[in-house]
């Protein structure tokens, strides 16, 4: 997409979000919309590492929860305002991403994925044993008072998430268009060949893991204010890891639009299923759709569209 057109569309999306927030429709729309937008951020973040660089991260929940728990820590210790929480959560998760990036020196492919999964469990154990942020029994967070502009706090958080989602997608879009995106694609296809051609693979991988971790932390930081009660098992939920990889896989992993399409489709389907059927069943849908797509349409929806057009 051309730069001008992209900027117009993204500004349009933010504008629409603000308008929707002012419209005061059924409050459930904001509740559900927040979750879907949160998944846009998470799926986009996952895709920067998983789709562009080809490193499958099973530890999404670790980065997300680290963002959320950093926010709790900042609320508890400093009563920090929301922008600080988002930045802080992002930075801490970004540092974790940096560490994971150096782990890729030793761990390739499958072993990297297993290590990220292990990381999530280790972090969860640490949080369970850390009483300052609530430990195993969790912690209640009191929302700050809202300004006049937004009716209630969820509507405000919804608007914030619109901006974060557009920001995350823009970062992915910028990476994709630059030499970084091409370098990542090269190392995804063949890491040794890329290194031989002079692609700085380590620096690129570390960059990808850091940015990916940062964005996941950003997505997690407003979470305490959204749910107002955070416990380890909800923040470290496996659903985040499964959704984070299912959404890009369904949409298509090679472009920024894939995770957005996947997150909006799957996120909306889950929200509808939660209300109309049951929350357990909607998780089953995610699993089945994920396996179905991986087996039958490995290029995702975008790949399907391309194949039909190509004929």
């Amino acid at each position, binding site marked *: 997409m051309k730069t001008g057109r992209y900027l117009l569309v993204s500004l349009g999306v933010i504008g629409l979000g603000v308008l929707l927030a002012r419209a005061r429709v059924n409050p459930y729309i904001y509740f559900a919309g927040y979750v879907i937008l949160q998944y846009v951020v998470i799926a986009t973040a996952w895709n920067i590492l998983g789709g562009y660089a*080809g490193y*499958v991260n*099973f530890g999404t929940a670790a980065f997300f929860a680290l963002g959320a728990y950093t926010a709790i820590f900042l609320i508890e210790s400093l009563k920090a305002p929301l922008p600080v929480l988002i930045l802080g959560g992002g930075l801490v998760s970004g540092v974790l991403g940096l560490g994971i990036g150096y*782990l890729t020196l*030793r*761990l390739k*492919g*499958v*072993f990297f*994925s*297993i*290590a990220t*999964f*292990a*990381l999530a*469990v*280790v972090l969860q*154990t*640490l949080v*369970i*044993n850390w009483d300052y942020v609530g430990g*195993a029994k969790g912690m209640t967070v009191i929302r700050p008072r809202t300004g006049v502009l937004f009716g209630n706090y969820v509507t405000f958080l919804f608007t914030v998430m619109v901006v974060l989602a557009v920001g995350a997608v823009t970062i992915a879009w910028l990476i994709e268009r630059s030499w970084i995106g091409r370098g990542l694609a090269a190392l995804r296809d063949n890491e040794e060949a890329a290194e031989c051609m002079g692609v700085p693979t380590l620096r690129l991988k570390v960059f990808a893991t850091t940015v990916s971790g940062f964005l996941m932390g950003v997505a997690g930081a407003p979470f305490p204010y959204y749910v107002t009660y955070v416990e380890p098992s909800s923040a470290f939920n*496996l659903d985040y890891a*499964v959704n984070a*990889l*299912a959404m890009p*896989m369904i949409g298509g992993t090679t472009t920024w639009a894939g995770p957005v399409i996947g997150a909006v489709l799957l996120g909306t389907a889950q929200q509808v299923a939660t209300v109309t059927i049951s929350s*357990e*069943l909607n*998780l*089953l849908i*995610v*699993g*089945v759709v*994920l*396996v179905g797509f*991986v*087996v039958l349409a*490995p290029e995702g929806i975008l790949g399907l569209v391309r194949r039909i057009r190509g004929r």
Partner: protein
Amino acid sequence: MFSWDLLANAVIAGVLLGGFYAAVSLGVSLTFGLLDVVNMAHPAFVILGSYAAYAMNTSFGLDPILTGLVFTPVFYVLGAVVYRIYYESFERKGEESLRGLVFFFGLLFIIEVSLSLKYGVDYRLVEASYIGKSFEIGGVGIALRLLVPCIVGLAMTMVLHAFLSRTFYGRAIMAVSQDRLALRLMGANPVHIKTIAFGIGIATASLAGALLVTIAPVVPSTARDYIGRVFAITVLGGMGSIGGTLVAALVLGVAESLMATFSGPSWSLAVSFGILILALAVRPSGLFGR
């Protein structure tokens, strides 16, 4: 204050736990260690085995371990089918690494959610004559519910080891992990051999699941706790070495038991995953690497 009694009890409990961990990890050693199939869903198959034992136990009063044994052919077929799907969709096209991983991760999720839909998220347990009994040797208590799974786990390890080193199919499985082309030249079909091996790997999950539910009550999400354990053991044991798997399982069992005794059970899970990350980062070829 340090107590030798406590230490001895923790070590014995750890060794017993380790024998059981070996049973859970054998399947992964076979499928991941030898066949290079990233069978992340193995712990979910183990839990499936637990629920099979639970269902038979509550409806017919069958012994859980006997049920585990009876169900192995069912799990064998299940494993063979899963491998065929995996082979046709990924391995044949050479796309196994990334998408195969996601496939098994999705499978893990599907099994777990299906079980919670069917049985809910309450803890389920079985009843058998040896559960709840224990005896004492020199101040060290030994619970039968730990001892029996440990013995079965050791037996499984020995049978699998004998199978792999003595029988034609066992040797063919070892061969397919080393050189597929050479196996083909010897007139054996690698895909056929791998299907058998994968089936056997999943069949061990039936018994391991029965052992698991004997030791402690289970919920569907118990599977997640075992992902780190089985992969830590497999990697530490040297990817596909059956003897190495047993040693690594014992090491992990003792380490976890010590951690649980001296720092509290909420830390014990971090041990396996910590060992896994360390093993992966420092010595990916394991203690007994090829």
